[in-house]
């Protein structure tokens, strides 16, 4: 591994780091930036616990070498709430208690946020397809499905209020 200079924009903040460009984005986010909301679950892109957004697109950060991020802006679960206001997905998960241990929740929330940005009123099938790569071991997915539906309603109410 060779050291290189890497510039990263994470949750609106610029970081200049000197590190191995092959290291995973997940390791850099958690270890170098101290943003531990993004979780390690499997290290092979199977569980979705490490999901972050790159320019709004969901990726498994354990599978992305940090040197490949380039100029794309990284959004982690810590960057979803604006000025302390939860986004509709976070609000719905919190209101409905759609978790037990909560370890998968950041990945679920980030992935569902990306879904609703592209598809504000997804069908149940579309929600299931979007979250297929995110594992939850505790709550049997039923509550998560309900929370994403509720988030879609909350987002629609928010749009109506603004218009």
């Amino acid at each position, binding site marked *: 591994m060779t050291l290189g200079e890497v510039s990263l924009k994470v949750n609106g903040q610029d970081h200049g780091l000197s590190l191995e460009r092959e290291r995973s984005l997940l390791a850099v986010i958690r270890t170098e930036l101290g943003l531990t909301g*993004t979780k390690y679950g499997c290290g092979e892109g199977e569980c979705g616990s490490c999901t972050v957004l790159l320019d709004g697109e969901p990726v498994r950060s354990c599978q992305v070498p940090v040197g490949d991020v380039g100029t794309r802006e990284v959004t982690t*679960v810590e960057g979803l*709430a604006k000025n302390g206001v939860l986004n509709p997905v*976070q609000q719905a998960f919190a209101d409905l208690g759609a*978790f037990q*241990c909560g370890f998968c929740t950041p990945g679920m929330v980030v992935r569902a946020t990306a879904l609703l940005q592209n598809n504000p009123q997804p069908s149940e099938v579309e929600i299931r397809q979007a*979250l*297929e790569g995110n*594992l939850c*071991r505790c709550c049997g997915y039923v509550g998560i499905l309900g929370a994403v539906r509720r988030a879609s309603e909350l987002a629609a109410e928010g749009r109506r209020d603004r218009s």
Partner: protein
Amino acid sequence: MTLARPARPWDRTPVADREYFDILGPGLVAVLPPRKPEETAASGWQPPTGGAWIHVGSDGRIRAFTGKAEVGQGTRTALQIVVADELRVPHDRVEVVMADTDVCPWDMGTFGSRSMPDASRALGTVAAGARETLVSLAAARLGTPGVELEAVEGDVRSRDGRGRVEYQDLVRDQNRVATVAPDASRSPRARPVSLGRPAAADSAAADVVTGRRAFVSDLRRPGMLHGTVLHPPTYGAHLTALDLSSVHDRPGVTVVREGDFVGLAASSPPEARAAMAEVRATWQEVPQPGEREIESHLRTHPLEGDAWDQDQKILGDAEAALARSQVTMQATYRTAYVAHVPLETHCALAEWDGPRVTVWIGTQTPFRTREAVAAGLKIPVEDVRVVVPPTGSGFGGKHGGELATAAARLARATERPVRVAFNREEEFRYAYFRPMSVIDVRAGGDRDGRLAAWVFHNVNGGSAALLPPYRVPNQRVDNELSRSPLPQGSYRALAATTNNFARETAIDEFAHLTGVDPFALRLMNLDDDRLVAVLRRAVEKSGWSGRIRSSGKGHGLAVGLEKNSRVATIAEVSVDAQRRVRVDRLVTAFEAGAIVNPPNLRSQVEGAVVMGLGGALFEAVRFAAGVVQNARLSQYRVPRFSDLPKVEVELMDRPDLPPSGAGETPMIAVAPAIGNAIFDATGCRLRTLPLVPSGRVPETEVP
């Protein structure tokens, strides 16, 4: 927040010497002693929980202490409700401090669905005692007899409305300890439970959805190093030689060898793993059975000596009754080794302060872990503090403290905090599994479906739910444990799942032979009103109308009784032309006594059902020559969204009964219900878990 450290763990300190008020501030502490105070942690046998205590502070804070661990089951919120209801305060006034061995009551461990039966009773009782003390303090303050006072919303008020004083005023600037009698009178459920409405929101929900909740693996300490442990290449291998010369030259690497333990610490996880790869270890390997030989291995290698998990029942003469029976069945059932796959892998972080060490670890047995660390490092138990931070699930897979001992050793050698975390592959290889089991069943009865004989023998599965809930006059039921070549241990509802799978499949086979509807046959033979009630509810909810026997669709039914909780599950499956199985719908009726927190109970049942679905359909540890062959999430399949059927849960509340365990029992009827439904759809009887590892029903019946 970890509380300041007392001079000695409070569970090992006489009540009068505990620094409750130095650490928690002035106020009232109510203490419920262990049920048998003479049997303390220093002597062998112990009651399952070492009492409870509650602090009512002059600052208005109320903290309740239990040795149980929260690893995602929602126990914290349920106990918060129990304490708040007894103390007549809003739920969010109560903070529950759990699984910190320096400040919490001793506890055997968080397993066996004991959190609600044990901890809710202990904390409910001590909270009731605290309330009585507050009322008597108010009686003295107000000059009013206690009987004319009542506790309401954090005040003690006189019933005529003239006097009123807040709890914190009653305890202001006091250092008062009240001992609560174990029979302190609990009140009837203070607030009616409304099914479907949250009794209390998880106050930490905002932390969870924003990523602020710090799990064990998120903890960092200044100067922290990363450790890793040397593991044998195959199960049972012994270390015969070790060459550390290449590692000693690596800067920043510290190696520790103590007995069988070999570990090292370095500045980062990749550094540590790279250094470990340089260690030259020579192993003496021993032959290990493969999947082909495992059944005969288990049958011929009984565990001798420490056979703690055994049960048996002999009633009447089962052999004679079988010989007389008009209808008999005989079959052998098998269940595979299964992995827990907690989403957060095992992790521990240790830090020394002089002669004393603190270990933060995701474990279900913090007190047992404390003792293991003390024994491993040869230091007094009093010098070890084990704290369980938020933990990313357990399911019975996080007992014990191997990593706690490893982290403590490495931290002692380096004089720095050390964190040791399994990666996913290590989690699969070096944790432990739900045991494989083999179960031989013979049953007999008359043509009307009445059971007369029941012979049931479980090899290596364990004894939970071994005995049938059916009225059978002649029984011979027992189990034995084996020397397992793979590491095995606790698992959510482990033996109950395997025993119930064999039993409920056998009952279905017997019903089929008699031609009696499986629902009617169970009603005819069941001996438990509560179990009949959940069965009727599930049948009603699902619209069960007997077997459908239409090509490609099937219905199956199963019941279960375990940990004093009752469950009935009805499965609906489809099998397509390629014989691929899809579970379409699972209806589960569940009763566990009085419901404390309905939304969490519902979530527990849903989660248990879907976890049960994984073990029923496809989860299995593959192994050969002492090595796990599928030690990755891409190779070991667990349920995903695409596997999710329509999951319907019917909760039955019994406010007249104490709450019993709810995390385990809801999963035990899932596998037999699905297997019975596959038989209904195809005529193929599957007797091994997982039922369809390839996703398809075999063309021919599996013997």
